[in-house]
């Protein structure tokens, strides 16, 4: 089963997204802050990371930078999730090394499309 690491501090968002990812056939690993996200990326080697940007301990931009700076995790695609639908946020996320960008509230078909495209999975 394809493993996805979900880094999200809001409990309800985490619950909703993880349930819906599971329903769509993904194995979901949870991290509740940026540091845990970086650690779990290394320990679990997920196929893809969904990264909230406003996170405690270590924010999503910095966590992404660290994931991308480590050769062992640099190849894992990262999708940034943020509530701010601003071009600046998108560019900041891309500058931090994110491969894709999506805004919250998550639209599941759109997000699934992006996940599948990055993983080379059929729709």
């Amino acid at each position, binding site marked *: 089963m394809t493993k996805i690491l979900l880094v999200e501090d809001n409990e309800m*968002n985490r619950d*909703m997204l993880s*349930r*819906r990812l599971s329903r769509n056939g993904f194995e979901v690993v949870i991290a509740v802050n940026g540091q845990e996200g970086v650690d779990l990326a290394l320990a679990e080697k997920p196929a893809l990371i969904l990264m909230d940007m406003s996170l405690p301990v270590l924010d999503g931009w910095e966590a992404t930078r660290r994931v991308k700076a480590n050769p062992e995790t640099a190849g894992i695609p990262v999708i940034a999730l943020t509530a701010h639908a*601003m*071009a*600046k946020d998108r560019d*900041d996320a*891309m500058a931090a090394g994110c491969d894709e960008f999506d805004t919250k*509230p998550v639209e599941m078909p759109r997000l699934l499309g992006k996940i599948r495209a990055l993983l080379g999975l059929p729709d």
Partner: protein
Amino acid sequence: MRPEISGVEMGENAARDEMDHGNEATLLRATLENMSQGVAMYDARHRLVIWNQLFRDYLDMPDEFLGTEHTFSDYIRYLGERGEFGDVDIEVALAQRLKQLETHHRFERTRPDGTVLEVRRDPVPGGGFIAIYTDITERKQAETKLREAKEAAESASRVKSAFLANMSHELRTPLNAIIGYSEILSEDAADEGNTAMVADLDKIQAAGKHLLGLINDILDLSKIEAGRMDVYLEQVFLSRMVEEVKTIVGPMMTKNANEFVIDCPVDIGTLRTDLTKLKQSLINLLSNAAKFTKQGTVTLRISRVTQVDGCGTVRFDVTDSGIGMSEEQMGRLFQAFTQADSSTTRNFGGTGLGLTITKHFAAMLGGAISVASEPGKGSTFTIELPAETRAAAADGSTGAVLDPGAPAEPGAITVLVVDDDPAVHEVLAATLGKEGYILRHARDGVEALNIMRADPPDLVTLDVMMPKIDGWSVLGIMKSEPALEHIPVIMLTIVDDRNLGYSLGASEYMTKPIDRQRLIALIHKFAPGSEEGVVLVVDDDPQVRALVRQTIESVGLHVAEAADGAEALAWLDAHRPPSLVLLDLMMPVMDGFTFLAQARAVPKFAELPIVVLTAKELTDHERDFLARNTLLILNKSAQPIGTLGAALAHIASHNR
């Protein structure tokens, strides 16, 4: 002592002609008394010879002081002892005033009773001076009140904006849960075949999404009104944007069984504008059209238009075959919280803010929106944007324009000089300053970055060897920050004469992993408008080549590939020069350094734009090589100024 309330003291010679001048003296007195200012005139020996009542009143000057018996210094000492100047050393205050008397001067003074006097003293021909006192207490009070009111208003506006931003976050969080969980339940119910529940859950979901739309609109409008809506300019590929818009509005069109027609030339190209705002504007117009049209047609037409004044515009027409509007309805259309008819809100929903926001957005992007309609015959909304967007703030708003690539006004190019050597600052200030460049100075990298972040300059000259952080690190940090990465950098370092000069061909380098957005931006910088251009990608990693190929082809350019420097040289030999070369440094057979050196040696490749792709960490050797080959290098110890001036002009025009 004189009985008159004002005086005109006359010397002995004047007294002889008193009869003749009596009339003039009366006139002068009348003039003085009718002035709304206090006037005092002193002769060459600083004795008071002319004064009026207001002078006496303003300074509470006792009568025994009025007249030629005392000098200016006596008055000042008297006033000082009386506490008129506060707690200061009287002799110091006097010395300062006596010195000022040599020139025209003006100052404001608050008296112990709170009145504010403006004092003007001017030397008069032949010695002496005239002092004019104006009571500006009321003006000062009004200014203070105005300033306080302005500060209070600004503070209130800040509080309001912060409140709205926080509030919108607080509103959105529970709303996300409502939308998300109703979606999950709806999916569950669908799996169980419980269609009645699916319908109800979908209503909760739809209502939640509607509420979210309202919150977003209100937040947008409040940001616009507070002048806090930023314009973020980027190169927008119009046909790609249309595809995205189509995906979003498609379901709205099917809802009322409308046909959605897109009329957009394949070669429509790009527009420098704010993608998010343009997209949102079009979605607003299209969703309105879909809402007010049933079983009809909605058309989005995009075209390039040349105006009579020769300026190009890009025109977006959204035409529907819906219910249309009367003249009167159209008049109210763009006002906040109104729809063409208040009953429409009941029938068609919506916030009534969409068109207001769209109108503001169009203005912020330097364009305008217009409408043509007839009741029963449908409507056409048109947004027209300039083909060359110089971001314009919306009416009354002062939204910051985030456009790192925006050209400077001619003659107002700001150059930030970063060097720990004061001599370099002096030399540049003396030469470039005279040329009309505005110079700013930083002594080290940290200070430089702070200045750049606060107010990005048009150009930066960067010393390599500096304390704290060196020039290369500053450059690296600049290239990693979107607001700074576009600022052209000129490296200033000590090199020998034979390397003096510059090779602008590669004034850029990129780090890996490759940022797609940045790559596209670079391509547009170096290969603007050349739709048939070729980008030569030189990299030994086939994956990198494939990735870069995909990005480049997506913007309509062609790609040629070479696996090492030797292959690249062979390709260059056999083809017309490419628009751009993307060059990896570490490659087998022939590395990027050797390729650069050899390509450089061929005159026709001297101007070839080469963007170096590097891993983030450069070795000293690599840095040194890049210093000599990819950026402007000047010799501080030689005669850099002429070259630097030419280079600045070149880069400034290149950047424009």
